[in-house]
């Protein structure tokens, strides 16, 4: 049985294809102005990789903020539901899934079957999401991918306003003029974000194992800061940005079996 999951994020659309319960391919496209088209591209890329036609897909489940725009989908699942499913599939002992994407961050508490029990999200605020790092990298004039490694060179962190991306940006500009070191500023940026994210986890109660997914999980600087703030290890799968799509595809499998 072939199923697919599509995660329509604010920055990119991710698609994965499962054969029974086994992940066989992935695809990705930038959301741009037309997420529906991006979804077709991402799914098309994933299908092409394993030389499958769209007609072979038994069930397609969409998730992510743009899930209602997904073409050719049979059902949808909440982002929290998809995170929980994927987290436990990837790490059977996972009980807390932290998902940090471009514009969203959330913490999800789940049970042994990957059923979502409770969650906290960063509603209406970019502090704590990937957009924060992006804005700060621009202010610091450092490439986004260099931010993490740079921050790891610091022994201590500068102090910045963590409550708001826009205020944080102004703080970074002042710190540059005070000639504080870039690694220390970069570390402060990740610490600030990790503060926001760990406080979401604390609101749920810290239930190990904690799994980190979403595009920001690829940033070594953020990962180091989050581990420090939580005081426990954080598990990260390969391809963490595909977790939402994977969760959706797993939901698709369940829906076919139940039908």
């Amino acid at each position, binding site marked *: 049985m072939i199923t697919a999951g599509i995660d329509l994020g604010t920055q990119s659309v991710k698609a994965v294809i499962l054969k029974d319960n086994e992940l066989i391919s992935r695809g990705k496209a930038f959301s741009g102005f037309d997420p529906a088209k991006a979804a077709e591209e991402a799914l098309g890329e994933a299908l092409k990789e394993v030389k499958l036609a769209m007609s072979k897909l038994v069930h397609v489940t969409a998730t992510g903020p743009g899930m209602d725009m997904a073409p050719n989908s049979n059902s949808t699942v909440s982002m929290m539901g998809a995170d929980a499913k994927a987290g436990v599939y990837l790490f059977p002992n996972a009980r807390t899934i932290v998902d940090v994407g471009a514009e969203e961050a959330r913490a999800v508490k789940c049970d042994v079957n990957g059923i979502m029990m409770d969650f906290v999200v960063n509603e*209406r605020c970019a502090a704590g999401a990937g957009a924060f790092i992006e804005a700060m990298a621009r202010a610091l004039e450092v490439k986004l991918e260099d931010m993490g490694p740079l921050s790891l060179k610091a022994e201590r962190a500068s102090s910045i306003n963590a409550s708001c991306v826009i205020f944080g940006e102004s703080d970074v500009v002042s710190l540059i003029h005070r000639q504080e070191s870039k690694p220390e500023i970069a570390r402060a940026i990740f610490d600030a974000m990790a503060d926001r994210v760990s406080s979401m986890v604390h609101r749920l109660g810290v239930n190990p194992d904690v799994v980190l997914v979403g595009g920001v999980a690829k940033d070594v600087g953020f990962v180091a800061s989050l581990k420090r703030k939580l005081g426990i290890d954080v598990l990260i799968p390969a391809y963490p940005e595909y977790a939402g799509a994977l969760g959706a595809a797993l939901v698709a499998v369940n829906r076919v079996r139940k039908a």
Partner: protein
Amino acid sequence: MKETPQKEDVEYWRWQEYHRVFSEKKWKNKDVITAGVDVGSVGSKATIMIDGEVYSWGVMRTGSNSPDSAKKALDWAMEGTGLRLDDLKYIVGTGYGRVNVPMANKAITEIACHAKGANYIWGPRVRTVLDVGGQDIKAIRCDETGRVTSFLMNDKCAAGTGRGMEVFADLLKIPIEKIGEVSLEVEEEPPPVSCTCVAFAKTEAMGLLRKGWSKEKVLAAYTHAMAIRMGNLIKRVGLEKEFVITGGQSKNIGIVSRIEKALDVKCLPMPDWRENGLDPMIAGAIGAALFGKALYEKAQKS
């Protein structure tokens, strides 16, 4: 002369930088010439006063370096006046970058300066001042002398400030000066957007455009949400008439008219700043220059 930019590189967010000198006034060395420099997060404003009367000002964009921006704004206020830095008896710095005004004799918080400046622009009847700048919203109550009696500001979040409007101007390709009028070109006021986070402004706008909303409707929904945020801040500090708006967003008719509606109050009329009146954007710098005069005179007496 600056060349007009090519059509494709138009920066719609870019507001007009300008300076003005009331040339019918002449300064003499014995006058108390003071200056106020208000370095905001987005705009830098400098005002020069002669014996407590506005003589000239300059308004420009704040660069990444606060001391530079302060100096440039002050130089611009002095341009064509024959004044030199030495002629200024006292300089007060204010605004977000007030500690970074190298030539200032003293730094004073922008809350005090805006109340004082509003009192100067509109007279002693002003009791509530809303200052909306690039990333700040401040609701200030004051007495008939322009002294602050209480205030509230957005200290944790920049949602609903001028920066968001710049993002919208750019994305919708509407010059920032026109954005207020355009936001009023809707037959029916749409519901406010749920999120005014500046960092999400782009996503928010794209989502609405995708739904098939017109530019005007998108702007109306965002402006509406901003006005509600500002209105709530004023309600919390307590609205007392007369009410005025200062800062860059005081020029946004879309914001002003919606705040008036939300609070069921009329603002005192905007000075004709394009002609011969004072610009509400320089209220903070005026207040700073007035404090400068008082401080200078106090120092002379002792």
